[in-house]
């Protein structure tokens, strides 16, 4: 863990009362700020909340929103809900994986339904939603992800 990350983690932990109920909140805050949960951070959380490291690890490794490894590049969320599945999300996912294998610096995360089924299949890059995507469009999306959100209509 880098020095600035350590500093951030310390600040976050200091803001929490030592109560097991707050474990997930605390871990999510660290995940949000640092991008993942470094091993040292888990140890610090365990000490602060007065919990065995094993308990902290069992929660940290359970949830999809938490990650024990740093993610590379842009995080691309792909919705794999039923509507998206039926409208070709698997092909979108395949295409993204192919791009990743060809050296595109992205981390692919799947979400089991974002509840924006009118836009299925949905891909989210840097908090921008792209709806009604298809494999051919994925390349363009990664290129223009900094611009405005979904333009296509249902």
């Amino acid at each position, binding site marked *: 863990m880098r020095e600035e990350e350590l500093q951030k983690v310390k600040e976050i932990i200091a803001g929490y009362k030592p*109560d*097991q*109920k*707050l*474990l*997930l*909140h605390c*871990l*999510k805050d660290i995940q949000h700020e640092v991008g993942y949960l470094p091993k040292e951070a888990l140890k610090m959380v365990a000490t602060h909340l007065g919990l065995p490291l094993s*308990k902290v690890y*069992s*929660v940290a490794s*359970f*949830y*999809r*929103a*938490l990650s024990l490894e740093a993610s590379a590049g842009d995080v691309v*969320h792909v*919705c*794999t*809900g*039923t*509507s998206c*599945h*039926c*409208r*070709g999300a698997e*092909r979108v996912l*395949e*295409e993204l994986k192919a791009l990743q294998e060809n050296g595109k610096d992205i981390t692919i995360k799947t*979400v*089991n*339904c*974002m*509840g*924006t*089924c*009118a*836009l*299925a299949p949905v891909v*989210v890059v840097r*908090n921008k*939603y792209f*709806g009604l995507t*298809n*494999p*051919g469009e994925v390349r363009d999306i990664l290129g223009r992800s900094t611009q*405005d*959100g*979904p333009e296509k*209509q*249902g």
Partner: protein
Amino acid sequence: MALKSKDEFERYAKDCIDKRSRKKIRILVCHGQGCAVRGAQDVLDALKNEIRAQGLDGEAEVIPTGCHGLCSIAPSVIIEPAGVLYGNVKVEDTKKIVDVTLKGGGVIEELCFRQDDKALPYVREIPFFASQTRIALRNVGKINPYEIDDAIACGAYQAFVKALFEMTPEKIIEEVSVSGLRGRGGAGFPTGRKWASCRKAKGERKFVVCNGDEGDPGAFKDRALMHGDPHAIIEGMLIGAYAVGAKEGFIFTRDEYPLAVHIFSLKKAIEDARRIGLLGERILGTDFSFDIELAFGGGAYVCGESSALMRSIEGKPPEPRAKYIHGTEKGLFDLPTVLNNCESWADVPFIIGKGGKVFASFGTEKSKGTKVFSISGAVKNIGLVEMPMGVPLRKVVMEVGGGVRNGRKVKAVQTGGPSGGVVPASMLDIPLDFENLQLASSALGSGGMIVLDDTTCMVSLALYFVRFLLDESCGKCTPCREGLVQMEKIVSRICEGKGTMADIEKLKGLGGAMKLACLCDLGRSAPNPLFATFTHFFDEYVEHIQHGFCRAGQCRALCSFKIVEAMCDGCHECVESCHKGAVFGEKGKLHYIDKTLCDSCGDCFRLCTRNAIVVEKPVLKKAMEA
């Protein structure tokens, strides 16, 4: 300023009503997730600016609201009192809306919702809205969810005040029992009975919990409720807490996806309710104290199971408990707890305000009241509707949903998420309630309804759910953890064309064991989608196994595509979409697929709006071998 008595509340409510009625015209801009991601905030800002610029602030106001329901025309705008609905509104359209509709009283046809090629400008004319009965969603899309005063002006907290000052806890529970309300999260347990056993249970502290985890893919009604009318949930929980004797409440919600509008809304609503003294110590001067905390999930489907959800709030891994431990006696922190779904909580104020009998007058004999459905998939109108229990599925798909897009046919409707099943097109006339869907090997679940057309392979859909559950299984009990691994292996084998008929028997045995031996309902219901496809679409399994053919064009190993000459108009879209460069043809002329290049991904097949690309039925080689 906290309100200290019933009189003070009533005066406050009157002020709210006065405040709301000051502006003649209200422009409701949908701020729900579907609209928000398509630029609703920009439209809202532009409308506000335009109204200010034209000096209309005195008579018109623009407010953000919860989900209007029709997500397929997002962002949507409703102009009241005329009741004009505009869809797909862009910032450029806002000046015209102010000029034509606000000042001129006319309608802009190109922004109207269209059905059967006819523009329907008014909400009351559109079947999607006209066929609804709104109880849980009574204020969603009507009020500004970020302003408690607006909610109070529309009747929020009146039922709570009635319960607190005019009813005993026993009377409240009786009223809820009379209403026949059953859990809206899917289990369908009678709410009145749950409350009664929690009231009886002994414990120094008691809790009420709102389950807003909504993990079923294709369901988004809880989020719409939490965002569009958080006060209905808070009010329901207040009534429930008073009835069972709880002082603390939790609203549990998921926030695993980016841009979660409902969390902002909930936070604001709880703060506002505290500010005016509807949450906190000695509410409205009585001995009743109650407060609500927000709890968040971290992306785990199993959190939707009540005992797992309670463990998650406690800061433990969300693993379910055996069913013989009742949450009403040993729930959150091992203390008596009532846990209900968002929609159930939102129904409670209506039941107390209008009477259990009024609620029970909707619906069927055993499934009373209304139900919110999230409709998505292949239908034209995607969105959220509330209808009386027992409404025929056909009405929801054809009338409300507007039928299937691109001239395709309904093949089935998936209901109940990963614990549910599929209802085939031949059974579209079944009434939607707990009992009838169960009879059809499906489930009502939390009201998610995904309409499937003929491009969805039922074997592949079963595999999808098995994989979903495999991914989400918490791993605590062996039948679920290991059973799903084996199930996945066998079903994928069938999708790859390597299955045998003996595999079907294996799956039946495995699923049967899981139904008996899994610890929680999610595990016990895990084989449901698979079994439902066995019941209704066994032909497709036979085709996959014996004929090496996937009629829906989804299982790559089992399909090849061709272009039908009579249907192709040479629009060229398939050529542009093909990632293998396997489709050839000049624009405007007949196209063809080079099978030596094609990898059967099916992109062109799903894309073609002329239905010119079809799955080729293979020579029945496997059958001939046999």
